[in-house]
């Protein structure tokens, strides 16, 4: 068996990739990874019950991220400072010229964004996402569906979607 510490270390690049997409801002993303790694390492004895360390770590990151969002919401008196409110996302987008996917992602509600990323970027199965986030499968599917459709609407609201959507390797 790979040493747990080495296995956790091997997960760090994927945690960083996911956090970067989830948080959108470098320092916040790195802090989230650091907190996740520290908490994961301090509870390393628990992970083998499930066997899949990455899913377990993404679950930890999810909980920390939810806590952060909640704390941020409590600190501010209004919701619209730096937390895009789900209901406003589409209307916002109409008036904004979105420059890229990152900007569009930031406009998604966090609960949709994280599922879209765990599936589309991290390649987790729907069952794994449900397990990691502690949600029923049906909730995962409906959030995925709504998140993808909202992202499509946001992306298509841009100036030249066909040209910019081309994937250039």
């Amino acid at each position, binding site marked *: *068996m*790979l*040493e747990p*510490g*080495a*296995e*956790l*270390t*091997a997960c*760090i*690049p*994927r945690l*960083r*990739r*996911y956090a*970067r*997409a989830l948080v959108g801002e470098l320092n916040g993303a*790195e802090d989230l*990874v*650091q907190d996740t*790694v*520290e908490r994961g*390492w301090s509870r390393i004895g628990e992970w083998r019950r499930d066997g*899949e360390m*990455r899913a377990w770590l993404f679950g930890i990151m999810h909980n920390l991220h939810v806590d952060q969002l909640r704390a941020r919401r409590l600190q501010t008196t209004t919701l619209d400072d730096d937390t895009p409110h789900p209901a406003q996302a589409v209307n916002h987008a109409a008036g904004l010229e979105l420059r*890229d*996917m*990152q900007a569009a992602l930031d406009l998604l509600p966090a609960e949709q964004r994280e599922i*879209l*990323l765990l*599936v*589309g*970027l*991290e*390649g*987790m*199965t*729907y*069952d*794994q996402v449900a397990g990691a986030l502690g949600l029923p499968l049906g909730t995962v*599917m409906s959030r*995925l*569906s709504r998140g*993808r*459709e909202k*992202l*499509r609407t946001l*992306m*298509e609201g841009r100036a030249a979607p066909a040209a910019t*959507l081309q*994937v*250039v*390797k």
Partner: protein
Amino acid sequence: MNALPVTEADLHAWVDGALPLARQAEIEAWLLARPEEAARLAAYRAQNLELHRLFDPVLDEAVPGAIAAAVAVPTPRRRWWEGPGGRCAAALAIALAGGLGGWTLRGASVMPEPVADLKGIRQAAADPAASLPRQAAIAHAVYSPEVKHPVEVGADQEQHLVAWLSKRLGAPVRPPRLGKLGYELIGGRLLPGESGPVAQFMYQDAAGQRLTLYVSTGQSHNRDTGFRFAQEGPVSVFYWIDGKFGYALSAAAGKGQLATLAIAVHEQLEQAP
């Protein structure tokens, strides 16, 4: 036609390449008659690609010291696949070698047909010398059934593919030409290996039979070998070690047929500067 009704969940599973081949074909037939739905799903697939294009570079960045230091990493004296945990390690290798595919393997409800073949590989004896062919066979079993995304970079961008993989492996790698033997290069991808990045080149013949060449550069601890053959579950593998390079050619083909191809690959690699 008594196909199952198509649900929104089916359509997302199609976007994510998580359907068994038969169901995938049914969905594609269904989409043919519904261009708007097809456009919607194409946009979702483009989202996945765009996410990878934007964020995959993060995987290559150096991990900040503060994060790495959060884990007290012991330096194991034994290599990870040795010891009593060999079978667990092999299961982990599936996850590592699989990358994206590794996740998919775990979800029993969306498990595609070819995955069953992996069980034969996983149960193979944990012999350190068998590590290279086993990892190559796992990578073959994971990626060769892929219909839509068998490779990360296609053969139409071969120059880019060669430059990219050579850079990541830290040594020049080049896919051999197997056209005379009926196999054309489809492209390649980068995979995590036991001691660093590994390249996989994929070929296909006119009948759709796929062949993969797995190239690892972390073999300095092993001595050079001649040709060796391994049967890993349904996958036949010819492999050899040359300096720091380890090569493994895999296909779900007979030993004789694969031997001809392996000899051709070996010859071309020998001649390369």
